[in-house]
């Protein structure tokens, strides 16, 4: 089911079957070139598959943007150990809701991407790790897996190619940190989601101590198109160093929120004004977070001329991240926004390393007090300093995910923090909201 109207400005590659009747069924998939890319890949050498993925300039869609072809090439193909394909469907970065629509509307595209990854690295089993809250998607996935077995697209000797592959859906049970690749692997092994020290990276020592390819749902979903139409065609959809499209989640203060597939390099202004229909109630843009709440925030001015791709975002010292765009209008209280973001990271810190556990907790306490009107001038620098002391010093990047918004909010919206010093609760609350309630201070 689709939850928003598509936009004519979309470039539909991964989402091309969305909206078709029974788009999740194997028959719909097979009728529309489904599993043809697998057939093609089965006739290619593994190096050729990886080469096409490299040519496509596909970069990981889970947040870090690591080149996928390169990641696959790190797997020691000739290792005597079994190899595994793991799908990261933990999708918990605030602002992000795209893997959900990919699985719901076209699970076979994901299965085909996984199979091709299996061919590339000589893996014969895979796991789709789906966050526990997405129970209905476990059912969608299990149904699709069942169909694929029934029609010979999973199991032994798939379509007479001699290639065997088994796929399983695996449920999480509520933990953002389990989206971090090594914590996910711990969780998959029935443990607390505490990250592992790296190196070794999962490509060498991953699931069950074996070489593992671990990618985001959207990353695998791009693979069938790459093999079917060639890496170069996919690359041409994007910008020079990043190929293809990005499932982009427009959220926050926007007239037409939704998940849209936009080519990489899509202009931010056009995305907000035309795809998203602009900002409600005639308000203006104050700020935007481009790729989930862990990315540094951009001011309206910084959004000018920006495009949705890795380079344009890194030139602005932020990230394309997961594609979760959070639009904030001119009535947004940036202190409150940061406080809520930090409450999340404090709640989700796994507690393993001190800079993250203590840092997020301090930040939360200070920001809650600050927003309620109990802040002091020195708190403003303290907030920024705690962020800077966490950055790069935590065991896994969850600490950075909390530090990056913190540092950028304080730097770019310092005057809003100063406006909270008058000793009374938030001066920025929307006029039409009536009195402020302190529910967020738990």
């Amino acid at each position, binding site marked *: 089911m689709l939850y928003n109207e598509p936009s004519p400005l979309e470039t539909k590659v991964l989402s091309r079957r969305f909206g078709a009747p029974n788009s999740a069924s194997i028959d719909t998939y097979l009728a529309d070139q489904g599993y043809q890319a697998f057939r093609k890949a089965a006739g290619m050498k593994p190096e050729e598959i990886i080469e096409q993925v490299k040519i496509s300039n596909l970069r990981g869609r889970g947040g870090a943007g690591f080149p996928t072809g390169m990641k696959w090439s790190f797997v020691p193909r000739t290792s005597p150990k079994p190899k595994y394909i793991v799908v990261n469907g933990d999708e918990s970065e605030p602002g992000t809701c795209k893997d959900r629509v990919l699985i719901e509307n076209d699970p076979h595209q994901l299965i085909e991407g996984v199979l091709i990854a299996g061919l590339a690295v000589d893996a014969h089993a895979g796991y789709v790790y789906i966050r526990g809250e997405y129970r209905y998607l476990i059912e969608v996935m299990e149904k699709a897996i069942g169909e694929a077995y029934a029609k010979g697209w999973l199991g032994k000797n798939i379509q007479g190619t001699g290639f065997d592959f088994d796929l399983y859906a695996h449920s999480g049970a509520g933990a953002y940190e389990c989206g971090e690749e090594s914590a996910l692997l711990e969780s998959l092994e029935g443990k607390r989601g505490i990250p592992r020290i790296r190196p070794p990276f999962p490509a060498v020592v991953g699931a069950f101590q074996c070489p593992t390819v671990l990618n985001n749902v959207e990353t695998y979903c791009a693979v069938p198109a790459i093999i079917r139409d060639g890496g170069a065609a996919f690359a041409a959809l994007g910008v020079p160093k990043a190929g293809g499209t990005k499932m982009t989640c427009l959220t*926050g203060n926007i007239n037409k929120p939704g998940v849209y597939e936009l080519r990489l390099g899509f202009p931010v202004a056009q995305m907000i004004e035309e795809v998203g229909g602009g900002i409600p109630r005639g308000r203006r843009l104050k700020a935007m977070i481009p790729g989930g709440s862990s990315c540094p925030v951009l001011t309206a001015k910084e959004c000018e001329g920006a495009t949705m791709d890795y380079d344009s975002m890194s030139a602005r010292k932020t990230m394309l991240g997961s594609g979760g765009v959070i639009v904030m209008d001119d009535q947004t209280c940036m202190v409150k926004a940061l406080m809520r973001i930090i409450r*999340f990271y404090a709640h989700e810190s796994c507690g393993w390393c001190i800079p993250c556990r203590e840092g997020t907790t301090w930040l939360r306490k200070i920001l809650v007090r600050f927003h309620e009107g109990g802040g002091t001038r020195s708190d403003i620098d303290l907030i920024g300093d705690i962020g800077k002391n966490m950055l790069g010093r935590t065991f896994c990047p969850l600490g950075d995910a909390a530090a990056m918004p913190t540092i950028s909010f304080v730097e770019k919206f310092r005057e809003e923090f100063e406006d909270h010093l008058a000793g009374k609760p938030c001066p920025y609350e929307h006029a039409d909201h009536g009195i402020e309630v302190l529910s967020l201070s738990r």
Partner: protein
Amino acid sequence: MTFSPQLEARFEKLLKSYPPGRQRSALVPMLLYAQDEVGSMTDELIDEVAQRVGVTPLQVNEVLSYYSMLHRKPMGKYHVQICTNISCLLNDGDKLWEHACKRLGIGNKEVTPDGQVSLEEVECMGACSWAPAIQVNYDFHHFITPEKLDQLLDSLTKKQ
């Protein structure tokens, strides 16, 4: 401890989904599915699952305390989870939360005296583009206003 045939079948399938000697991998999904049937993580349930996957009850406890969806206390028949994270907040998710607390007279992770409804303020549930969003048990409800929430609660409590 006995479970429904559906749950037994699920356990059997799960235990076969991982490499030999790796039954522990089934632990997290098994706990969640079992909780759905039993209502909460009872001592008896912990012992049973521990035995089935071959770990100690202490190890199960250690794991379950990490995951936010697993809980030792029973929740209501309808567990209403309201997201107040950033994309929902920008669409008045916090006001919705406040409204729900007032209407039900309960707070976070509390249950109405008749055991029907419980409330939880939750983190991003992956419905950010259709905010504010809530989940009642596993069902998503998008674009929820206080009025829509009232109607939903009315219809749930009437169903009993």
